[in-house]
């Protein structure tokens, strides 16, 4: 396959499905295609149950049953593309995870092994991937931790001896230590107070700038998207409904759902009345026909109830899934 532009990852018609029984399956990710470029910060937004976390699990290739995935996730590796979904899990573990893609899970402050010192977390990953001895790895870790702006003695500590914010920075440092080209972060700062959140987000973006890699940030917090991301993908009921540069999305959202979402957000110093959206997101076991948003949409027409609208290019780099823009 030809390498075009700077895409580090290309997902084509990806599905992520939770098969609960032969009859019941939940399509959490439903026919999603995206491209990630080198050196950008992408945000994935949406409400709980919209499939944003499942999407990055699929892109990362972390498929725990009952999650199954279909489609192509092409990862750019030295002038070549590998389909993450078609290689074995052992291959992903040895050659892709940590080295090419890292994943920072939700509740990142609680993912460290409580029986292992921080330093052993680092040296384990290093020795496995670089095929060096533990003591050599430890030395590299010591040097590395200094470059991350952390003190060397944290390596000797157990996770419980560190504060939550420190543990989160350790997890970020771990995810970055093999200089991956893509980092997926799933709600990395929920359950942290806003001050620590800012420290962590600034830490993440600083490191992104240094490594010039791709950071994909999944969060429902629109404030975080506005402050951090350059480009945004908004999901609803397993589908991408809008994809746009962050600034455009906040200033002039196109999809009725994005419009309602952005306009409902309260801000400091803003006293204008805000209105929420009626209804609830659809049940993914039994989604509505046509546009998934039509039961809540103020502009719903007959065609919306029958046909799923395609993702239309509104402008360069700005896509919307809504019939309102199909006549252009």
């Amino acid at each position, binding site marked *: 396959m030809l390498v075009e532009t700077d895409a580090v990852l290309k997902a084509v018609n990806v599905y992520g499905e939770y098969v609960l029984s032969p009859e019941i399956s939940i399509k959490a990710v439903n026919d999603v295609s995206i491209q990630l470029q080198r050196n950008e910060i992408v945000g994935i937004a949406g*409400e*709980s149950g919209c499939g944003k976390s499942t999407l990055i699990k699929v892109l990362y290739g972390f498929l725990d049953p009952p999650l199954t995935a279909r489609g192509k996730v092409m990862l750019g590796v030295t002038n070549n593309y590998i389909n993450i979904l078609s290689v074995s899990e052992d291959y992903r573990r040895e050659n892709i995870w940590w080295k090419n893609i890292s994943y920072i899970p939700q509740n990142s402050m609680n993912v460290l092994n409580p029986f292992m010192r921080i330093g052993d977390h680092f040296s384990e990953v290093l020795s496995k991937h670089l095929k060096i001895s533990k003591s050599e790895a430890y030395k590299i870790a010591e040097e590395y931790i200094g470059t991350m702006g952390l003190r060397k003695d944290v390596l000797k500590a157990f996770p419980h001896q560190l*504060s939550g*914010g420190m543990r989160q920075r350790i997890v970020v440092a771990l995810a970055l230590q093999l200089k991956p080209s893509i980092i997926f972060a799933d709600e990395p700062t929920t*359950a942290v*107070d*806003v*001050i*620590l*959140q*800012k*420290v962590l*987000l*600034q830490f993440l*973006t600083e490191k992104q700038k240094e490594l010039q890699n791709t950071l994909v940030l999944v969060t*429902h*917090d*629109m*404030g*975080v*998207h*506005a*402050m*951090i991301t350059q480009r945004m993908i908004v999901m609803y009921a397993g589908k991408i409904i809008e994809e746009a540069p*962050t*600034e455009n999305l*906040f*200033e002039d959202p196109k999809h009725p*759902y994005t419009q*309602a*979402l*952005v306009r*409902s*957000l*309260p*801000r*400091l*110093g*803003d*006293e204008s*009345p*805000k*209105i*929420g*959206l*009626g209804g*609830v*997101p659809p049940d993914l076991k039994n989604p509505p026909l046509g546009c998934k948003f039509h039961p809540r949409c103020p502009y719903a027409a007959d065609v919306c109830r029958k046909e799923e609208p395609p993702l239309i290019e509104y402008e360069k780099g700005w896509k919307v899934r809504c019939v309102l823009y199909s006549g252009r």
Partner: protein
Amino acid sequence: MPPLLRLENVSKVFRYGFFGFKFKAVDDVKIVIEDRPMIFTIAGESGSGKSTLAKLILRIYRPEYGKILFRDRNIYEIDDKEFRKYIQPIMQDPYASFNPMQRPIRYLRETLVNVAEVNDEKEVENLMDQTLAYVGLNPIEVKEKYQHEFSGGELQRLSIARVLLANPKIVIADEPVSMLDASIRMNIINLFKKIKDDLGITFIYITHDLATAYYMSDEIAIMFRGTVVEYGRSRSVLSNPLHPYTQALQESLPEPDTKKKRRWMEKKVRLGEYVEEEEFVVKGCKYVFRCPYAMTKCKTTPPPYINMNGVEVRCWLYAEGDG
């Protein structure tokens, strides 16, 4: 007229472990809520003691020191039945508020009979229908459904309907919208504002979300490690914060406004060396380990409540004379 609710130097001590590492989850809190309809926010991060304070007002915990007065009566001198008529809670988790084995409507009916003491069956049904319609639910549908058939937003509306049936003076809402999605959240918040205006109920809104606090509340108290560091009119506290902690909070808050991006990114947060346990037990100001203006006095003596143009702030920076 006496204030609706007054907290006088209220403290609650918790103990960790057998040998008792003691700390004050709520430490010397003084708040006055005047007797007029308003939304009073208690804001703070996790571990700030805001939920403990709510539980103290609800009599779930008993304070070790200090008094809580409802219209100048100590809440512990009011009998249970009367107390329930004055103060009612709305909980955070809408799914845990109702018994899954029974229809939620039963809980509403019981509230009417037991708390509001309405015994006429026709009136019970009437009041229920009215209130359910008022909070935006269809009474006929609600009566047939079980808890699992409702969405989170609908359950929270049901909790609000239940509270309204009790017809209290004060409603304590502990993070009532934190489990709801952003698009639904505003509807519930607008409902609170409407109830305040229509029915004259005072809300004590407990949250960590400063943006919704700014949007809905009249007054706000900012808590840190059990102490109230600043309180007053929310516009003033959140637009021109006085306490260094409130300032740090306001500067760190990511806002859904891309125009503020540059300022937010450029302004770095200074995070001093601190240990959470130490912050709880320090004698003076709890913020001293992180404060950029910390003085020696801050560590040893707790700052008093200082009135600055109607805003109460606990910080030595604003003390006159020897400040």
